[in-house]
């Protein structure tokens, strides 16, 4: 028993040594690589002459510097390190001491040491394979780097460049002797070759494992075969291959021999990926670009599926004080896993919400979506914020907990280059899932921008501030010049389908939940109660109301008052200082009529399996998606917009609401009309830009980041995170970044499960007052079978409360409307403070006890405004 253990231990140590092998393995491998792929980087077509190999001493080599920062090449990992010259603190792309981490397995250690990891797939085969830059490039000495202006560039070849070895994996005994061995003269060499092969004879078939062998090597039934040992190292393979080559063996012969033994030879295909990373030092950080479109690999044989860039840049070690920031909803903070109580390894969010062209996995609970392409890590006195500049639409953002697979906590982005989908055909002969890969892969660049924050800035509020400054400097955000009073966002709904009995005969018809006339009355009544600056968003007013046909043309619902009614409403709104934002949905279609310009099979989105894609409507009880609403082919959206705009112009509008464009981003996988997500985003931006140009005033929903340059107001901007068990706090990151530049509000106050906390939330985040009210009888909504999200919306029940709340919020927020939020902090349990540029601060107390903070008394579930 004991002896066994010792043997085991020795074996493990032996294996570890064999893998680690610092001394004797390397020179040989380097020589190999030089021989085989020495000119590899040259093929990438960039200034290869200047490229050099990483030094073997594992030191940092300075590459560039500016006033604040210094950039080093890290000879240990092939990555970089950035030094903040003022504090001397270093940010490594790969954690120091990763190879000595006691918690990590060997594979995890190499993962920690890589800057790129790839997921790829062999065409025609199922299952994804992985590679990382340390194991498959750095260790094989296939990395070269060179200085560039204000930065450095790294080129690497992941995997073996040579595609196939001229080395038979399986070969019939007769042909091996005839084609190879007979040409080799030295007996010693012959024996050496044979030492790497196992001979299986037909006599073996009679043994205990006979059947198994036959299943593996069917050719064995006819003749004896040689099989290459699986334990053979790459280096030995190289030596062996040169012997075989010398014997005059050729690829043609290899193919013949493979055919003879019935071996399909796929394993002999070696994947390789040649890629380039550019690191450029910026004034306040670093930008990193992966030239994704120029990655060289065998596209005939492989699919590049996914790429992760710099997964451990700035990672924090468990035990350190610090947290990860993820853009989950409004933003969430996950403290490092120091006590080991957080047992979720990976928290992942796809940017900009689900893609309904892909099949939707069933879900267990409701979560927020990730709306902004940012993430960050804070540790000690400094923080790192990353912004995805390019490739955001195909990105997902991950948070990884330390103390599970290894010691580091990190946040990073990965990019889906090629989507895949699985599908199980009912009644198929084979009940295995089919996997299909996207043909229209993402071929743009992947660009990340890192901001290094220190001192006061080094927290989530600082990160949000850095993001805001970035957006401003890019010209994406522009300061608003708001009216005196804060906005009152009023969302109202037009027509729904109901059954009405006419002379006892029920007929399906439209009923007005709020007609134009009634909406006008709501405006009047609100104005009469002192509400001003109303932004009236009007939904379900065209092409069939709530369940509308495609917006490829416009017909104002008669039951609401028709086009005339709408114009009158707009005029009335103008008089009272309000604005009317009719809402148009270009992304989905929920009713289909003949000749409306939309044919689901033609103009709808399709899945990878060429099936019509639906915007899944989640059944709240079963949590399964039900198909009822079609997604519009993103290619069609600009065209629909143009056609709609022509009709819409007759109303002489001054504003528009494009709610779904900011909420949903779909691909389309229909053959010949493929749109990947990045292209879809470009199309959405095109429409948003046109609308912004034409009307000036644009409202949208949910706040996907591509809206920022065009939207003036964003409703339903998430003001909460997903309440993940491992998260420590929710933070209003989006609000801190946007306040003063874009008007926004979270959930409608009247739909909040508790009103006062919702009001406090609005005050804490600097939101406008937002209500979703309808003038008509609420029971209409029950009659219309609207199962979800419309309740508690009768205007009569809310008009007084809404006006009072508006007055209350306006008092607090009206003088900071155009100001950025400079700080946000938690003062005590359930007590938060938001500080604006002018020094004005709002303290909110969600707790049910009065509290005294910073010399100010804040009542239970109450707030206090502090003016300097």
């Amino acid at each position, binding site marked *: 028993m004991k002896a066994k253990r010792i043997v085991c231990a020795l074996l493990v140590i032996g294996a570890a040594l064999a893998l680690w092998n610092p001394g004797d393995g390397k020179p040989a491998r380097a020589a190999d690589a030089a021989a085989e792929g020495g000119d590899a980087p040259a093929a990438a077509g960039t200034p290869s002459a200047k490229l050099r190999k990483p030094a073997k001493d594992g030191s940092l080599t300075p590459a560039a510097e500016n006033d604040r920062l210094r950039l080093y090449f890290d000879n240990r990992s092939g990555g970089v390190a950035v030094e903040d010259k003022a504090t001397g603190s270093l940010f490594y792309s790969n954690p120091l001491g990763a190879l000595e981490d006691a918690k990590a397995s060997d594979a995890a250690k190499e993962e920690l040491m890589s800057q790129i990891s790839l997921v790829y797939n062999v065409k025609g085969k199922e299952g994804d394979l992985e590679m990382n830059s340390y194991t498959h490039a750095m260790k094989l000495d296939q990395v070269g780097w060179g200085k560039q202006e204000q930065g450095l560039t790294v080129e690497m070849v992941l995997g073996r460049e040579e595609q196939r070895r001229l080395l038979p994996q399986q070969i019939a005994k007769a042909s091996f002797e005839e084609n190879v061995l007979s040409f080799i003269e030295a007996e010693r060499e012959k024996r050496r070759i044979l030492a790497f092969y196992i001979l299986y004879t037909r006599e073996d078939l009679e043994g205990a494992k006979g059947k198994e062998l036959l299943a593996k090597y069917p050719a064995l039934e006819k003749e004896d075969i040689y099989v290459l040992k699986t334990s053979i190292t790459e280096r030995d393979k190289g030596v062996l291959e040169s012997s075989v080559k010398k014997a005059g063996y050729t690829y043609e012969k290899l193919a013949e021999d493979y055919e003879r033994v019935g071996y399909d030879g796929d394993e002999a295909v070696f994947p390789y990926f040649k890629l380039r990373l550019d690191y450029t030092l910026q004034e306040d950080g670093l930008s990193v670009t992966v030239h994704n479109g120029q990655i060289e690999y065998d596209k005939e044989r492989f699919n590049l599926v996914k790429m992760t860039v710099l997964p451990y840049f700035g990672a924090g070690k468990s035990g350190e004080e610090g947290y990860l920031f993820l853009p989950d909803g409004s933003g969430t903070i996950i403290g490092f896993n120091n006590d080991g*109580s957080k047992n*979720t390894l990976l928290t992942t969010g796809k940017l900009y919400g689900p893609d309904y062209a892909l099949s939707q996995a069933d879900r*267990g*609970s*409701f*979560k*927020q979506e990730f709306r902004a392409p940012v993430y960050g890590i804070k540790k000690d006195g400094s923080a790192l914020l990353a912004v995805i500049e390019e490739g955001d639409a195909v990105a997902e953002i991950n948070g990884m907990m330390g103390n599970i697979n290894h010691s580091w906590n990190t946040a990073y982005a990965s990019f889906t280059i090629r989507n895949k989908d699985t*599908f199980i*055909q*009912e*009644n*198929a*002969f084979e009940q295995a899932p*089919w996997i299909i890969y996207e043909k229209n892969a993402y071929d743009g660049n992947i660009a990340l921008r890192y901001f290094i924050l220190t001192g006061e800035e080094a927290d989530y509020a600082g990160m949000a501030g850095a993001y805001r400054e970035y957006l401003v400097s890019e010209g994406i955000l522009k300061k608003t010049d708001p009216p005196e009073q804060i906005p009152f966002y009023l969302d109202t709904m037009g027509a729904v389908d109901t*059954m009405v009995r006419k002379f*006892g*005969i*029920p007929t*399906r018809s439209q009923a007005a939940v709020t007609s134009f006339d009634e909406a006008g009355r709501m405006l009047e009544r609100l104005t009469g109660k002192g509400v001003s600056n109303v932004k009236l968003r009007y939904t379900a007013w065209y092409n069939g109301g709530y369940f509308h046909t495609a917006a490829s043309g416009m017909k104002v619902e008669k039951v609401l008052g028709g086009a005339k009614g709408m114009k009158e409403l707009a005029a009335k709104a103008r008089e009272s200082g309000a604005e009317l934002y009719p809402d148009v949905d270009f992304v989905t279609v929920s009713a289909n009529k003949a000749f409306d310009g939309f044919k689901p099979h033609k103009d709808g989105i399709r899945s990878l*399996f*060429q099936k019509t894609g639906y915007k899944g409507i989640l*059944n*709240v*009880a*079963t949590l399964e998606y039900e198909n009822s609403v079609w997604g519009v082919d993103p290619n069609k959206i600009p065209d629909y917009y143009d056609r709609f705009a022509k009709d819409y112009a007759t109303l002489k509008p001054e504003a528009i609401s494009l709610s779904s464009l900011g909420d949903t981003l779909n691909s389309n996988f229909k053959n010949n009309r493929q749109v990947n997500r990045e292209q879809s985003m470009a199309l959405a931006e095109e429409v948003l830009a046109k609308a912004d140009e034409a009307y000036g005033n644009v409202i949208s929903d949910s706040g996907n980041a591509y809206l920022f340059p065009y939207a003036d107001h964003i409703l339903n901007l998430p003001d*909460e995170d*997903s*309440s*993940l*068990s*491992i998260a420590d*706090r*929710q933070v209003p990151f989006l609000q801190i970044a946007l306040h003063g530049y874009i008007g926004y509000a979270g959930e409608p106050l009247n739909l909040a*499960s*508790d*009103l006062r*906390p*919702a009001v406090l939330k609005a005050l804490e985040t600097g939101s406008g007052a937002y209500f979703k009210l309808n003038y008509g009888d*609420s*029971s209409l909504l*029950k*009659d219309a*079978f609207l*199962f*979800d999200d419309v*309740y*508690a*919306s009768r205007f009569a*029940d809310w008009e007084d409360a809404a006006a009072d709340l508006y007055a209350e919020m306006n008092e607090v927020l009206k003088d900071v409307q155009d100001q950025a939020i400079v700080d946000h902090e*938690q003062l*005590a*349990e*359930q007590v938060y403070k938001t500080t604006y540029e002018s020094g004005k601060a709002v303290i909110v107390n*969600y707790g049910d*006890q*009065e*509290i*005294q*903070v910073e010399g100010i008394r804040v009542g239970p*579930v109450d707030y206090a405004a502090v003016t300097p």
Partner: protein
Amino acid sequence: MVRTKWILFFAAMVMLGSFGVESASAMVPYKTYFYDYEGNYFVSPDAYVPERVLGAGDMGIPDAALNQPLDLFVDGDKQVYVADSGNNRIVLLDEEYRLKKEIKEFVLGDGRTKSGFNAPTGLFVTEEGLIYVADSKNARIVVLRQDGGLERILEAPDSDVFPAGFIYEPSALGVDPAGRIYVISKSTNMGVIALNADGGFDGFVGAEKVAPKVADLFWRLITTKEQKSRTAKNVPTEYNNITIDELGFAYVTSSALGTRAQLNALQSRDKSSRNAPVKRLNNLGIDILKRNGAYPPAGDIQVKNDVSRFIDVALAGSGVYSTLDSTHNKIFTYDEEGNLLYAFGGYGSQDGVFQSVSALAYQDARLLVLDKGTGKLTVFRRTDYGDNIAAAIEARKNRKYDESIAAWRKVLGQNPSLEMAYSGVAQSNMRKGEYEEAMHNYKLANDWEHYFKAFAEYRKEVIGKLILVIPIAAVLLLWLLTRFFKYVKKVNATGWRKSGKRTFPEEVFYAFHVMFHPFDGFWDLKHEKRGSVRAAVFIVALVMAADVFEKLAGGYILYPTDWRVIELHDTVLGVLIPFGLWCCVNWGLTTLMDGEGSLKDIFIASAYSLMPIAMISIPVTIFSNFASQQEQPFITFFTSLSFAWAIGLIFVGVLVTNDYNPFKNAYTSVISLIGMGFVAFLTVVFINILQNMNAFITTIFNEIAFRL
């Protein structure tokens, strides 16, 4: 005083570090919903939202996190007891969930020997503060005082009633006000074990009687012994948990029911106790749970195979109770009548959803849920919406109707889909004599029984107003009808003498003659050509139209909904296909059996026979709009009459047309009916094969398209 307390609190907070407990308005990771009368789900405002999620560290329990905590109890002083089964201890928390006491062991009666728990899975605390612990693996019940000292130990009861091989493993227990102890022992299907106050065996309570089905008896006759032993035995229910209410009645839950049986009971709206996952047993062990809601309380309705499995019940007062569903990790709350008020929860790793729930309990307006997967306690806070519903139900229970109605109106303001609330408001309409309003609200509530009561009152009102008009209208109608029939009679009488081609109205009107004089009528129909194919087609179309009209314009007494989508195939299937089949099959048969009628003759005769259906159905449909529930028998009578009449006519028609004697006619008719069934069966089989072929071809197509 208050101030110093707060400063101290603040200091404590600072010491705890910068991160406090989640903010009060964190995202709710589930949607609260309920089902309407039809079984459709509606999203409602949240009635409960997660307030805090507490791990052992947050409760101030120093060592080990909770390990597989299985039971939870809240006593009269709002103290919380947790059975931390995996750690073999009982944890006693104060009102704010901070550790008060941890009971791991106790001194036995001899004053020296210490003893501990082995997997304590159930808890109950009496009003006097005695803690009853189901010490399952030790096969005993331990009774402790509040200070952790031992009061007594109840060892396994000794009784001859227990079958051989019975293993006593108490997993849950409850004590009624009289001191009687109810114990659930694992894997017992004999019901709840009742012990008297001294621990003596009192008997089994609540065992379900197994009534074998006829089909089972049949199978039992023809199967062999081995086959019998292999098929699942029809066994009574096993209970898994028990909760005692203030009256001493026991809510028991069962998760061992057959999936199909439970689902069928739910979907067929079974109000009986059979296959019910939750029951309320009185002292005699009889189930007295009310199941007067649209569906019996059995959790999720829109499920296929993963039916809700209840593992615990918590009582919220006023007869409201919540059940815990371990399949979906959801909480379903019902009122005393069994109406579903709201359902929420779910699976996940967010605050407010669970990995694997194990117990729940109410602490006043708060709801506590224990998760054995994570070892955490989730505290839910009741929202305004939940408060309003609770207030409405409480007021109703205390017979303060005005208050109750005011609360229901508030609820409706927040959730205009809740049927119960409409019912509540409609009650007030009735009391105030606003019958039209009441009808509207009862209709929205899908409460048709009460709807018709309101309708009857409303009708009385309207009739009162129209007292003069009605007789006049009736006389007018009668006069018109008489005129019409006189005219028809005249036409038919003159047609007798007329020869050659007849006009279309003449042909149709002849149907009235056939209706009343079948023998004579059918003879002339065939031999004098008084009918025609076009008139026959018209009559069939008329019957179809009457059928559509009935479905569209029938009163609520016929179809209690406003959503009447007419699908053409309904009518075609209901009228045209049976009729066509009859004609073809009957003709085919009678031709073989020396019938004299051609297909045309039989078609005309059969079509003319349908006239009574059209004539009676249309007025009945109109009448149904004015009928109340008492008048339902009239409608049934007239509908049956029209069918009987038509069938009689068909019988005579075929008899006359084929020149059969009645006996032979009856004989061929019966064979025709069998033939119709046979043809229908073949058609269905054929369609099925076509569908299979279609699926087969699509599959091949897909395989080729995607695999290659």
